[in-house]
């Protein structure tokens, strides 16, 4: 009952969220304004609050926190435009990571079009591959090949294989190409039994 009442109070007045107390008053006011604006635009608020809390814990300055939250809100909006209004918060967050890794909004849209939701893992693997040194266009091309039929576990295994080859000294783009061929064979075999992706 108490928890329900607390949640109701927070839902009616998000500024009452006790987590905001970890921000100084001026930062809090500016972050609350950004979060409220994002919520009105239909964007998830939790990622924005988390980013502000991360900044506070890392002793980041006020401006840096506000800029980070504002930038994240803008990127969530871009991801939402690319993935559609039905995209879930985890999908939007993964979309932001993919965008920041260098994927274009068009790539996000194509992955959404060829893969059964959720597309969180596909977008996350794309971002992780770029973080490992794979060129963004190579990573995007590989994900577009695998996305229609690969399971999430296949995508994670593909990422591990590419990272392993890179650690052993292979050029990132070459490692991606080689492992894509191997993964495609395996995914095709799996797809004959079950087809998690679409069409």
């Amino acid at each position, binding site marked *: 009952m108490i928890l329900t009442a607390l949640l109701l109070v927070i839902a009616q007045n998000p500024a009452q969220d006790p*987590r905001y107390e970890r921000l100084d008053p001026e930062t809090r006011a500016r972050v609350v304004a950004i979060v409220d604006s994002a919520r009105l635009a239909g964007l998830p608020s939790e*990622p924005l*609050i*988390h*980013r502000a*809390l*991360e*900044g*506070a*814990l*890392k002793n*980041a300055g006020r401006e*840096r926190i506000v*800029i*980070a939250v504002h*930038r*994240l809100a803008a990127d969530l909006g871009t991801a939402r435009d690319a993935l559609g209004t039905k995209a879930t*918060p*985890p999908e939007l*967050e*993964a979309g*932001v*990571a993919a965008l*920041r*890794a260098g994927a274009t909004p068009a790539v996000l849209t194509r992955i959404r079009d060829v893969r*059964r*939701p*959720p597309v*969180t*893992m596909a977008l*996350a*693997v794309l*971002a*992780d591959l*770029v*973080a*490992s040194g794979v060129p963004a266009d190579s990573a995007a091309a590989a994900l577009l090949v695998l996305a229609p039929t*690969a*399971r*999430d*576990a*296949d*995508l*994670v295994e593909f*990422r591990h294989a590419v990272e392993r080859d890179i650690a052993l000294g292979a050029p990132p783009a070459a490692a991606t190409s080689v492992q894509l061929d191997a993964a495609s064979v395996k995914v095709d075999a799996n797809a004959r039994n079950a087809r*998690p992706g679409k069409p």
Partner: protein
Amino acid sequence: MFERQDEEDVVERVIRELRQPVSIDRALDARVMSEIARPETGLVARRPLARAWPWLAAAAVLAAVALARPWSRGPRPDAFQFVLVAPQAASVALVGDFNDWDPARAPMHAARGGVWATMIPLAPGRYRYAFLVNGVEWRADPGAPTARDDDFGTPSSVVTVGGHGT
């Protein structure tokens, strides 16, 4: 034996008698009704129960739904283990999107050989996190992808929990 005429007379008399309205004592009627109305007889006591059974059934259904809480059944969280080797550390906390970046919510436990570990449930999603060593030093997870979108100049890692086929 009666003659036919006598027989007809008798039948006629019996029919007339039977057609007489039966008069019931009004006091008796009142006594019977008051007896029916008494709760101890059970005749009236059963009526509220009979009327209430649809409500009781509805309450039972509501209770069952409340216990089952189908609305709270989101994706089932999987338990993930986080490990950091830090032999010199006095304390290590795991902080990230999954615990509101609150060090108090995920202290890690030291095992033999300076291995710090903790296990937490994660629902599908993508989470940024880092290890906070001795309350001041930030470390990324060497066994996980690095978060490139770090806005605060300290290392962070990401963990992604998939939604299908993981």
